[in-house]
């Protein structure tokens, strides 16, 4: 099975859901077995939910996407500019999930 490796970071409190660890290296098949299409960001979100999340799944995923208040970044760019879940992952990509902060 051919795999790709991406760097995943959590911040703004989201890291608390992932073993309180901000930085993870995630290896994932380069093709989605279900659709035979190249693995995209949506696949990664499900992969994180199913394999990395330790608790309170509902605080990360809701209605099959990230929960409101979470921003997704692809190589320091808002995922909205990259096609959101349809963005096809490349080996070495850096994906950041941040929870928006409200304190002051």
């Amino acid at each position, binding site marked *: 099975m051919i795999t790709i490796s991406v760097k995943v970071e959590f911040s703004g409190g989201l890291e608390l859901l992932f073993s309180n660890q901000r930085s993870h290296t995630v290896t994932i098949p380069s093709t989605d077995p279900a659709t035979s299409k190249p693995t995209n960001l949506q696949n990664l979100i499900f992969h994180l939910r199913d394999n990395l999340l330790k608790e309170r799944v509902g*605080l990360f995923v809701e209605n099959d996407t990230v929960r*409101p208040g979470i921003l997704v970044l692809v190589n320091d760019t*808002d995922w909205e500019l990259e096609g959101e879940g349809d963005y096809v992952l490349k080996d070495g990509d850096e994906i950041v999930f941040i929870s*928006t902060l409200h*304190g002051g």
Partner: protein
Amino acid sequence: MALGSQAASVVVVGAGGLGCPALQYLGAAGIGRIGVIDHDHVELSNLGRQILHSEETVGMPKAESAAQALKRLNSHLVVDVITVAISAQNAMSLLEPYDIILDCTDNAPTRYLLSDTAVALGKPLVSGAAQKFEGQLCVYNLGDAGPCYRCLYPKPPAQDMVGTCEETGILGVVTGVIGNMQALETIRILTGLHDKKPTLLLFSALGSPQFRTIKLRSRKATCPACGTADDKSGIIQDTDYVQFCGGPRPDWEKRGLVNG
């Protein structure tokens, strides 16, 4: 450095952890007119990060205490002390007199209210936030294409992920860095030195690197606040921002879960 900004006016909402350092450098830069909106009073526990207040001003309204500190720096400053709570009913009239709005508040409902109001008034909103060891900075509604807060966060976050500084603790100097950067972005806009590209600055005191600059989406045509739909009248007055964000914040302190 003279900035030629004596004719400019800014309003800072929140004279706490973010508002104090932002006000300090806006005052030092000689901004002509500065509004300070805050209805809280200074408490001794604030002094670990709200650096314009002092032991002498404990009990005084924060807006008044901040204004006194600014005048020590420059007695010629014109500071409007506004000690009422900002709300959907008064936001438009309170913010209208100023060129730029700074969001130095500490809760989600006020952040949505300030964004909607900034859009309705056509003014940039320099927004800072901080929590524990992290901070975020973004200028909303800037120029012709800058997104608003709702473009980025159309739906409010779940209550259970929302912390306030009291609940989660905060490192004072994190608010200092973000508040200073809010003053800087404000000065850049006033002096025409801002490139107006929509970006989000992420700061993590313990990260490596500590700063990260993110390229953001443009204004969204479908945004209920700043999009292209014709009729947005009443969006502010008709919104219950607290309910929109999931109702009143649970009082963790009363429940004995955190120390006051």
